[in-house]
């Protein structure tokens, strides 16, 4: 990492509906995102987990409808661990993601009160971008949240055929 202070941060930013609220802006640190694409070109057996489902810490037994999921992001390290190896999963999002670079002044840590009471453990910080509030999501935490949810989509995560 060195002693160079970070002045800007590349982020992958995308819009997503959250429950009954209007669309919100979210972002992932760009270094954790390997690629993106449209769901219509995905293989039928691809494992796609909607981002909206990961926003709540409570595991929902029945997956939320994914009708609005039109795009996917591939996260670095997004593999399902287990006997059968490295079957990867994709994060489903509603719209196309965009790469932006924000100066550090526009990025803020969560106030201590919010950090202590957040219901989504992946919520890491917030940023201002084009006069909008952007929720910065920790991709590493998403990777830990995903496997139990994926287990509800497939009978046994550890027996996924490649």
């Amino acid at each position, binding site marked *: 990492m060195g002693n160079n202070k970070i002045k800007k941060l590349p982020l992958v930013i995308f819009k997503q509906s959250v*429950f009954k609220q209007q669309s919100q802006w979210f972002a992932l640190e760009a270094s954790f995102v390997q690629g993106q694409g449209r769901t219509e070109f995905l293989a039928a057996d691809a494992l796609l987990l909607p981002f909206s489902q990961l926003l709540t810490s409570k595991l929902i037994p029945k997956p939320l409808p994914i009708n609005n999921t039109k795009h996917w992001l591939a996260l670095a390290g997004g593999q399902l661990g287990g006997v059968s190896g490295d079957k990867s999963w994709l994060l489903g999002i509603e719209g196309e993601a965009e790469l932006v670079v924000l100066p550090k*002044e526009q990025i803020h840590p969560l*106030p*201590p009160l*919010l950090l202590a*009471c957040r219901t989504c453990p992946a919520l890491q910080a917030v940023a201002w971008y084009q006069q909008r509030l952007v929720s910065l999501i920790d991709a590493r935490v998403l990777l830990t949240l995903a496997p139990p949810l994926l287990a509800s989509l497939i009978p046994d995560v550890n027996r996924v055929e490649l």
Partner: protein
Amino acid sequence: MIQGQESQLDQLLAERDNNSQTIINVDEPVIKLVVFKLAAQCFAFLGTGIIEVISGDEKVYFLPGMPASVEGVINVRGDIESVISLQSLLNLSSAFDNNTLNSTAVAHSSILLGRGQLLKGKPMRSGLRVDQLIDVVDVPASDLQQPPDALPEHWRPFVLNLLVFNGLPVTVLDIDAVFATWLKEQD
């Protein structure tokens, strides 16, 4: 009148002079309070716990992944501050129930920017939405009364004192206890 004899006026003035000298200047300690209304009841925080009063119509940005009692965040001169509601903590209904933030209620409301004890090395602070700011006043410390035994059980952890202000009963809340209890409720 005989010269040198004290007149009645002299006596009267002397008495007045003596009276004024007998006035004792008592420097009674005063306490600054931020008095506000929430669900038609009056509450107050100690002035030391409130950094700033922000207009209620300041834009609050919804932040996903938060408990329902977090209204969102505001931008205060470039810094991010949370805005929370105290209704569920105090078992109150308010103008902002069911997320119906009607414009009239918002226009009359205020956001008190409160500061409490340290949490993980940083001062606990947040905006607190109140229905109406009534006043910021200095009151004699002797006006503050201890809370009665009949105080509702759920208020006991964070009620410091009671007082009567402009004929209204006011409950003085401990902002540290309010933050701590609010956080505990979110678990």
